[in-house]
């Protein structure tokens, strides 16, 4: 007796490939969730957060030392007051903006280059022969291992950090786009060409929109990796930014500051990932899975 099954079917027949939202394994769980009254269901996401806060409070308030030591870990109250102080100071926003600017620059650059190079490698044998070997060698290198080279290469650490972020975010998009080129139905391009489309028209009106689902799944992976790298790079070589600030707080024995920094990173990462997801859904509204939403 799940209400999900009684969703009205649209008058026009939906395509057969529409995935069913309730799979065998998740059915009892969804059933249970659906039975919970609607307003309560809205509050469900708050439960794990509240539990985590409570556990954190209990562990730190009682200075628990059981192999792992919570005696020096700041309590939720310490962090809250540290956060409050920071939110009122201008410096904090400066750090946040610095990190966001680096993410935006590196991520945008990676997105554009990833799409262009991915399409070229996926569609042209010559491009694949010329670019693929370099890609495959560079791909396993953790971006953070480039810090020394970035310091040597770029006049300012700002540019180095953006470069490292770019390097990390570049590969997920590129690889996703290369695979999308192979998986795309050839009939789309064939049909366009018999209607008089030029190679450029096919690229612009068929290949690019057809690759958008892959581009966005690559971008959401990239966004995660970009944050990891921007924060790590800031910790090592930055003079500004949330990563730098978190590390500075640690050096100054300001442990509540460290946790405030971590939470800030979490919120920023969550927000940017949500944004990418949101834009992706809008762009790819035609996908069968999106129609059901």
């Amino acid at each position, binding site marked *: 007796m799940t209400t999900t099954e009684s969703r009205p079917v*649209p008058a*026009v*027949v*939906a*395509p057969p490939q529409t995935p069913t939202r309730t799979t065998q394994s998740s059915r009892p769980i969804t059933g249970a969730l659906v039975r919970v009254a609607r307003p309560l269901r809205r509050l469900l996401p708050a439960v794990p957060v509240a539990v985590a806060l409570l556990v954190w409070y209990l562990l730190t308030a009682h200075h628990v030392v059981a192999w792992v030591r919570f005696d020096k870990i700041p309590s939720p109250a310490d962090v809250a007051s540290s956060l409050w102080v920071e939110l009122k100071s201008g410096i904090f926003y400066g750090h946040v903006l610095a990190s966001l600017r680096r993410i935006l620059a590196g991520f945008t650059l990676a997105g554009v280059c990833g799409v262009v190079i991915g399409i070229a490698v996926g569609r042209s044998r010559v491009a694949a022969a010329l670019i693929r070997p370099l890609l495959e060698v560079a791909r396993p290198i953790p971006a953070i291992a480039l810090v020394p080279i970035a310091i040597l290469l770029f006049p300012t650490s700002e540019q180095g950090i953006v470069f490292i972020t770019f390097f990390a975010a570049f590969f997920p998009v590129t690889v996703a786009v290369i695979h999308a080129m192979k998986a795309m*139905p050839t*009939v*789309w391009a*064939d*049909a*366009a*060409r*018999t*209607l*008089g*489309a030029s190679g450029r*028209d096919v690229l612009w*009106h*068929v290949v690019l*929109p*057809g690759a*958008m689902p892959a581009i966005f799944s690559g971008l959401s992976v990239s966004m995660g990796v970009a944050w990891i790298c921007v924060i790590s790079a800031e910790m090592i070589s930055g003079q500004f930014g949330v990563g730098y600030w978190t590390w500075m707080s640690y050096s100054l024995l300001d442990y509540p500051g460290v946790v405030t920094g971590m939470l800030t990173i979490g919120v920023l990462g969550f927000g940017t990932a949500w944004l990418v997801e949101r834009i992706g859904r809008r762009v*790819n509204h*035609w996908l*069968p899975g999106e*129609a059901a939403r």
Partner: protein
Amino acid sequence: MTAAPVCGQSGARVKLRHMRVDYGDGPTAHVDLDVAPGEVVVLLGPSGCGKSTILRALAGLLPIAAGQAEVDGMPIRKPGPQCAMVFQEDALLPWRSARRNVEFALSMSGVRRGERRTTALELLRQVGLEGFADHLPGRLSGGMRQRVQLARTLAAKPRVMLMDEPFGALDAQTRADMQRLLISVWEQHRMTVVFVTHDVDEALLIADRIVLLTPRPATIIRIVEVDNPRNPSARFEAEFVGRRNEILATLSEG
């Protein structure tokens, strides 16, 4: 250029001169055929015999290995709107609504932006899809999607319309509707139609001439002229049944 979607020109003459198309390890088709302007020719043969290969070569999507294919005396070298094609599978762009799919074809054939919308709506009305203009292909039934494909192909004002088993995936009722629709569209536009199918009844219902093909490599066994073509009551006449059995017998020998 007028906003009216009706073809200014009628169909083109199509000549296949000992055209051979290779695919993989050897020839898949080798045919010599002359199609008159405005004629409906059906290529009929067993599944996988290489009839689609002939069509794709005509569309310029496959290279011609030997011989020549001409549309109105001009050899075919690359794909273009002179020979637009209706495919069996979903060849619509799934991110564009029915109207925007038709508009895409219009923009490719150089119709100005301001005229595309009304022309597209008129074409969709012609194929019986009034009111479905803003539906995405994924929200339309198989028959409706093929109607959109037909409208989109008409938008390119093709002088030759190539159709690759366009109704093969539809149920019997929808298929009969689509055959009637095709005939009425053809009567308005009078373009040349080269139609591929493995369905003998379909061939007899729409063709002026039926080209019977051998299995791979596809060569012509025989060309059957249909007297009194596209006669709606023909289906129930004894002659139709006789023709049908004759064709089936020829195909099973070939």
